[in-house]
């Protein structure tokens, strides 16, 4: 096997777990496999490993149930937050809207908190539900972002205002990877807070006859928070209520690894 060929095989083997990589590369050296055979063997194993993960419902839920739709919706919310901020900063726009400075600030605060809450819970769910297929969820989240960034043309707003949701979402993913489940009480507080903050927005939003009701879109963003409640409830009923005094629980599940 040439050094360039071997480097290719080693690069492909990086997609495997450390111990498995070690065993597989050792086997290839011992069997004196050709570059092509070695590369095919490693890629075949990587494909099989990935295929096994996708037999479960978890990566499908994380990718197509949360990452992809939430990405579109949260870009809309990010834009709405940016527009509300611009309205507050510009006296002419504030005058045109029916808002005062005080009510406008409350609306902006509410929207910003909702954006953070929705993004964080969505990210947490993606990170905790399917950590080993996170790459796929990331692609499904970033693809709509790139598409919208390339098409966004509003003079008064930077195109990057579409991506306001990314920071809390990445934070949520990081937390979800670190901790598999929230403590039940924390999950309930978070879900209730998000749901309550949604309610005023349902009355204030202007609707077109062709657009779906505002609450359907809001629920599409809110359900990850209630999913976290459901999983936390199931975990606490398994472990026995009252166990664990910290904010989070589920360190053991993380150690054993979920799909």
């Amino acid at each position, binding site marked *: 096997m040439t050094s360039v060929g071997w480097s290719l095989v080693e690069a492909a083997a990086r997609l495997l777990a450390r*111990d*498995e990589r*070690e*065993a*597989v*590369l*050792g*086997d*290839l*050296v*011992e*069997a004196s496999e050709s570059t092509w055979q070695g590369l*095919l*063997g*490693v890629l*075949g*194993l990587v*494909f*099989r*490993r990935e295929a*096994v993960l996708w037999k479960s419902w978890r990566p499908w839920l994380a990718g197509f149930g949360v990452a992809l739709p939430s990405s579109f919706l949260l870009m809309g919310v990010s834009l709405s937050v940016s527009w509300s901020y611009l309205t507050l900063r510009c006296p002419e726009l504030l005058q045109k809207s029916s808002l005062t400075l005080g009510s406008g600030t409350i609306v902006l605060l509410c929207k910003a908190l909702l954006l953070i809450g929705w993004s964080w819970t969505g990210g947490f769910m993606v990170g905790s539900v399917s950590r080993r297929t996170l790459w796929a969820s990331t692609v499904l989240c970033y693809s709509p972002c790139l598409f919208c960034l390339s098409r966004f043309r509003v003079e008064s707003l930077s195109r990057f205002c579409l991506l306001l949701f990314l920071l809390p979402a990445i934070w949520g993913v990081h937390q979800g990877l670190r901790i598999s489940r929230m403590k039940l009480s924390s999950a309930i507080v978070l879900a209730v807070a998000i749901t309550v903050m949604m309610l005023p927005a349902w009355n204030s939003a202007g609707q077109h006859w062709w657009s779906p009701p505002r609450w359907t879109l809001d629920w599409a963003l809110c359900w990850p928070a209630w999913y976290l409640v459901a999983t936390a409830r199931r975990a606490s009923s398994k472990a026995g209520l009252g166990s664990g005094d910290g904010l989070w629980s589920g360190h053991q599940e993380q150690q054993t690894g979920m799909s």
Partner: protein
Amino acid sequence: MLGEFEYLMITAAAGLGDDAYGAAIREEIAATTGRKCSIGALYTTIDRLETKGLLKTWMGDATPQRGGRAKRMVRVTPKGVHAAKDFYDAVTRVSRGASWVANRTGSAS
């Protein structure tokens, strides 16, 4: 019940004894069946059998002929031996009377 490849792997690993690891099992299967076995098929089957409790694996020592890489050692568990024996018995029973069995008791020629 075991699959055909699972049976081959358990039998090869049992035959190799303390020297059973990925490359050796592949070589043994290729030598006895005349078919090459891919690394992907080998390691995913090892994992499946280990999950079922039919094999036990651990990382062994690194050797110079492997470029200093460690082996994934394999040992057949008593449950694995039992499953392989069940498979062998079933194949033996179902093969009685088949035309390709040398000392068949059936009438087919």
